[in-house]
């Protein structure tokens, strides 16, 4: 792990110091993301508490299999991303292995978006987009689906940024830029895991309520 000029940035003189600063910096950014999504989760909790039966009824209309397969994909992508990041931290960071892990991570992310797209199409066909043609009677069901669309779309936007970051690292790696010890890889990995964390909480609030009744 040398202080490669391609990855060492101003004002740091050594890569080790840059890595410490980058890790702290990305965690501060992730903290702001947690607060942002926290407010959305609070809005959902508030309205669900007002009318839990309608929220459960609305949640039965989401496709649990799309949601579960997407959870599986994101958890697996976190595994491959963690492998890329942790192997890059090794003294003997194996570049081909890191590139393969990054390619797998981006692929899982793209598959997630494809499945989400299919799910959105199904939701639109079932008239689950709140508005004049909304299929469910209860106003609370419309609120449920308003949160569903907003929160899954914002999550999808975050995932798209994550895929772009991972793909950029992949192409930079293929063009001979070093990946071992690269602080950008650590930052991208932490961001990716946060996107996974958000989904871990979206899954039980949108796909699981009302299944047992």
């Amino acid at each position: 792990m040398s202080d490669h000029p391609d990855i060492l940035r101003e004002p740091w003189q050594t890569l080790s110091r840059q890595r410490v600063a980058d890790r702290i910096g990305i965690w501060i950014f992730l903290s702001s993301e947690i607060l942002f999504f926290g407010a959305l989760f609070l809005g959902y909790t508030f309205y669900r508490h007002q009318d839990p039966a309608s929220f459960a009824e609305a949640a039965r209309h989401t496709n649990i299999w799309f949601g579960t397969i997407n959870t599986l994909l994101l958890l697996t992508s976190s595994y491959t991303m963690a492998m890329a990041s942790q192997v890059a931290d090794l003294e003997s960071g194996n570049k081909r292995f890191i590139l393969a892990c990054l390619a797998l991570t981006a692929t899982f992310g793209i598959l997630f978006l494809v499945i989400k797209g299919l799910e959105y199409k199904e939701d639109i066909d079932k008239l689950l987009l709140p508005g004049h043609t909304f299929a469910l009677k209860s106003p609370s069901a419309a609120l449920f689906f308003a949160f569903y669309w907003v929160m899954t779309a914002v999550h999808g936007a975050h995932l798209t940024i994550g895929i772009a970051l991972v793909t950029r690292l992949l192409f930079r790696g293929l063009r001979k830029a070093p990946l071992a010890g690269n602080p950008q890889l650590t930052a991208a990995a932490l961001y990716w895991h946060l996107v996974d964390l958000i989904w871990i909480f979206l899954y039980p609030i949108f796909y699981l309520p009302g299944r047992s009744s």
Partner: protein
Amino acid sequence: MKPQTGHPIQRLILHNGGVWLVLLMCLSLTLILAYEPMGDLNAPVALLIAVAKALTVLTYYMELRVARPLVLLIAFIPIVFVAILFTFTMVDVLTRF
């Protein structure tokens, strides 16, 4: 302490693979329990499993178990803030109506 053996990449594959299997078991459990009629307990149980999954990702994949104290503090603070946000809002909602 047991001495670590094997290639470092193999060790990482096994270690992170074990974490992945735990996450998949949690996912299976939450899916199965969602169909169990537990009344008011369904939602808290699903959220509890989600918290367990999140802590696993934070600890192992995001490497908080080896993070320096400042990083731990930065990661912990938003969780406290969100907890305050939820507590004060829900205390009001639960006692007002």
